[in-house]
């Protein structure tokens, strides 16, 4: 990842994080505010329900009191207590209930037998004893209880009143149905829904009102909780699959006649508006974040470009210097740290050039010294016999002519031989200095190696020490090279290897194709391994240095020439060796068709 991209990402992330944090804060605050509003609205509605509940209860109480205190009811109760037939009064309650607008009215005998039931006359004779049980409370205000009707159990707001006679009391239980009509009279604010969970002692429970369509399994845990605790609680509940809305539901246990909770008030507050606003905030935040990120990318891109441009120039300049172009310079451009870095780079480059020139100069001097030393060494060897021979001739003039002639013949022969030796030495130096440029063409390296091996095969077999050869050729494609020079390379390496194995051994010729070197078509690899005495690491490091040799009669130019040829072909040569484990020369050559770059 480039520096510019990193800078860009850093800026964009910073902007996005900042905007996201601000949006989250706004959303959290909005959420909290809505919760407070929702709480207030719910409380208001619950209070309204309680007022309606009390008002309805008061009306029912008033109605039942009116009936219980009426003269006709008193007369009826007295008649009944005097033995009047209950059956003849089976329809009495209907008229009373109608007059007081009561949905339910039971006239009950002292033993609990129903004398008359306005809502279910067929229940004549049925005994209701729940309010007669010892210890059962006799509530003055109205209370909630389920009333049995022909259609099933119905939740009702009831009032219980005794009708006093001279004997045991008769009872009146009257009330009204608590249904969706009562809930509808509450006129809840928009978004609020009121329901009542009705749980009769026998028969299935039901939900009256807005929550009637809500799956009961969503509400039941909350309802069960408040019924168990006789208190209130709230929870966030999914309001049915078709509504797909989340609601905050407040559940309040509605007390009944006994400890058992007969019903639970459910006030659901829709989070639709809050959700919509939160979505809106989220959208705006997303938009701002998007714009921020876009601006961050643009601004960051601009800044990153300004910052990275001189660094890029520096990197390019460094790369060019690495490739040998020492003349490259970087314009400082500004006075900031980047400008100073560019100036320092230029200064460093200049310093490197100066150092390099000094190094080249010193190396050149060293090379000349080495050359002089080698020349002195090489020339000194033949000069000594020449001096001795000439001195022998001078001394031979004092001998007899016959002796002089014999000495003269021997001395002239020696002189000629040593002069020839000098010429050979001078020729070799001349050859090294006049290394020709390679005439590149497609060369079958395998075939070339086979030719060399065939040439030296006889010599190897005839020698005092037997040297075996092994070919492991990889059927290489043609390489790009000069066949004469490459043959000379292979021959030099073979002769070098033979010298390294005076006691005999094994020469292994190996070729293969290498694709892992970055070249388009790959390169050819030629390895020549001997089983000689090997080289030390220090010897390996100096092996290709001209005039360096480990042999007693070597010139130290053979491997230097080999390296020069390989280099001129755009190839590379290296050596691996370990003492007493032989030496392997490793040459890589470009295939025919690859662009050859001479180093």
């Amino acid at each position, binding site marked *: 990842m480039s520096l510019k991209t990193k800078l860009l990402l850093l800026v964009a992330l910073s902007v996005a994080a900042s905007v996201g944090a601000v949006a989250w804060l706004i959303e959290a605050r909005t959420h909290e505010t809505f919760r407070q509003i929702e709480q207030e609205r719910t409380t208001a509605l619950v209070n309204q329900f309680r007022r309606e509940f009390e008002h309805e209860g008061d009306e029912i109480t008033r109605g039942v009191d009116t009936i219980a205190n009426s003269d006709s009811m008193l007369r009826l109760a007295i008649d009944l207590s005097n033995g009047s037939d209950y*059956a*003849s009064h*089976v329809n009495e309650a209907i008229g009373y209930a109608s007059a007081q607008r009561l949905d339910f009215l039971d006239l009950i005998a002292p033993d609990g037998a129903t004398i008359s039931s306005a809502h*279910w*006359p067929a229940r*004549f*004779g*049925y005994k209701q004893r729940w309010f007669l049980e010892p210890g059962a409370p006799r509530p003055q205000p109205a209370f909630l209880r389920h009333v049995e009707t022909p259609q099933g159990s119905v939740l009702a707001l009831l009032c219980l009143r005794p009708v006093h006679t001279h004997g045991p009391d008769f009872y009146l239980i009257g009330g009204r149905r608590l249904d969706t009509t009562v809930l509808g009279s509450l006129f809840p604010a928009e978004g609020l829904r009121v329901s009542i969970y009705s749980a009769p002692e026998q028969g299935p429970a039901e939900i009256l009102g807005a929550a009637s369509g809500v799956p009961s399994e969503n509400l039941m845990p909350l309802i069960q909780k408040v019924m168990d605790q006789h208190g209130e609680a709230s929870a966030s509940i999914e309001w049915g699959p078709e509504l797909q809305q989340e609601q905050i539901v407040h559940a309040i246990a509605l007390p009944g006649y006994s400890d058992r909770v007969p019903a639970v008030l459910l006030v659901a507050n829709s989070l639709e508006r809050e959700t919509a606003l939160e979505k809106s905030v989220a959208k705006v935040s997303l938009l701002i974040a998007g714009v921020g990120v876009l601006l961050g990318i643009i601004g960051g891109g601009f800044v990153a470009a300004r910052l990275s441009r001189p660094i890029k120039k520096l990197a390019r300049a460094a790369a060019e210097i690495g490739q040998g172009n020492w003349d490259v310079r970087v314009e400082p451009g500004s006075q900031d740290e980047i400008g100073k870095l560019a100036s320092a780079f230029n200064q460093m480059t200049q310093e490197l050039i100066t150092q390099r020139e000094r190094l080249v100069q010193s190396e050149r001097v060293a090379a000349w010294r080495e050359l002089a030393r080698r020349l002195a060494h090489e020339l000194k060897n033949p000069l000594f016999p020449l001096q001795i021979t000439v001195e022998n001739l001078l001394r031979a003039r004092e001998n007899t002519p016959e002796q002089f002639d014999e000495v003269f013949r021997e001395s002239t022969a020696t002189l000629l031989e040593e002069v020839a030796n000098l010429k050979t030495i001078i020729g070799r130096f001349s050859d090294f200095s006049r290394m020709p440029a390679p005439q590149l063409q497609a060369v079958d390296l395998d075939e070339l190696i086979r030719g060399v091996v065939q040439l030296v095969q006889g010599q190897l077999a005839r020698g005092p020490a037997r040297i075996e050869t092994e070919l492991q050729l990889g059927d290489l494609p043609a390489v790009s090279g000069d066949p004469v020079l490459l043959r000379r390379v292979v021959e030099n390496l073979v002769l070098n290897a033979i010298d390294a194995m005076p006691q005999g051994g094994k020469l292994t010729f190996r070729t293969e194709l290498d694709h892992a070197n970055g070249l388009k078509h790959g390169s050819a690899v030629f390895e020549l391994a001997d089983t000689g005495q090997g080289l030390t690491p220090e010897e390996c490091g100096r092996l290709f240095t001209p005039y360096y040799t480990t042999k007693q009669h070597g010139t130290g130019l053979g491997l230097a020439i080999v390296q020069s040829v390989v280099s001129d072909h755009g190839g590379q040569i290296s050596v691996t060796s370990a003492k007493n484990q032989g030496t392997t020369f490793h040459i890589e050559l470009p295939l025919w068709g690859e662009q050859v770059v001479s180093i």
Partner: protein
Amino acid sequence: MKHSRSRLLAISCLLLAAAGGHSSSRPHYGGTARVLLQYRVNSIDPAAEEDHPATRDRMARLTFETLTQVDPQGRVHPRLASSWRPDPAKRVWQLRLRLASFHDGTTVTAADVVASLKNAEPGWRYTATDRQTVTIETPSPITQMPELLAVEKFAVVKRLPDGTLLGTGPYRLSQWHPGEHALFTANEDYWGGRSYPDSIEFQMGAGLREQLLQRQLGPYAAAELTPDGIRTLDQSGQEVLLSRPADLLVILFLQPDNAGVAGRKKPIDPRLRQALSSAMDRDAISNAMLQKKGSPASGLLPQWLTGYEFLLDSAFDRARARKLAADAGLGVPSPPISLAYDFSDPVAKLVAERIAFDASQAGITVRPYGESHVNSKSAQASMNADAVLLRLPLASLEPSVALAALAGDLGLAPETASSALQAVRPEDLLQAERKALENFRVLPVAHVSQALWLNANAHNWQQLPNGLWDLDQLWVEGVR
């Protein structure tokens, strides 16, 4: 002296009052008797299927006459037939017609009677022996043929090609609006003499509330009552005519045990039907729901008619009912029984709800619901209910005839009717009734009285023990 004068004045006043009273109690012709009927009747034809046949028969009796008639004491008297004579085996009956004419002036002939009787009972063989003699031959002996012929179903009706029905009765049908209104005017040429009122007008389908309003405000002579209205009227000193508890309130299970008709529900297990019978608190139904205007029924015929009803078992036993219901359900709650009742009958609704309540106490679920038509066979055939609560009139004061008629109304096996008609001793009748009840397809609930409010200006309104009206001597006072 002063005392003597006062006594003289008082005696004079009493004599004047007596003289006035005597003049107002003397029958006189004219006037219209307006009657409110509880139910609606769609056809006046006695042979036609009708939801409320008792109501229809009350009107039909005015215009269509039977060959015989039964008085309140159950004695048979001649009507259109002046005399009759059976063969020794009681299979062939020869009836001599009196000289009478239909309302169009044509004379009643034996052929007319044969045609009418064929329509009522196609299973018998009829012969017009001569112009005035009809011979009836039945497949099996019928001891009570004269009583049977007094049933309204056997009324003589002349059916004209245009659909008009002609009778021979004391009133002719002047206006007929099915289900709404009927006007009968006096037949001047009636063989028994002209009736006192000029006409009798019926208003059908009047609700209880409307009845009460009309009674207080309108010029009605009479109105049918439901039991809950009786008490109110009793308390206000109004005259209420009550029949004997004659109508049979009965649960009829519609699916026979071997029903395999596609689309119909499975028949109710006989044990469950028996359980329902035991679960019903018939006393509570009679005393409370029917306001003691009925009696618990354990048989099809009432105790006052047969004297043996108490021998039939229908005791209220909730524990037994629970056990039977549990046995029927094999541990599983028994399926609900849908019970249809007459939507227009508030008493039927009340009784059905009580039955459902009693059943629920025994662990049986009964779901009552109102149906607009429950009595006719065609309505029952198309009904989806498991059972229906019927109110069937007592067709005759002769027990065997009444049982045979009930067997027909309830769709019981023909053997029930034939064994009833062949019964000579009460034991035979009891046996026939037991046979009819043994599979609990029919559960008698109560015998119900028919109640009628009678205006003080209506006189000689005769109500037979089974609730039928005999208006031959009716006259109305001061109503035009």
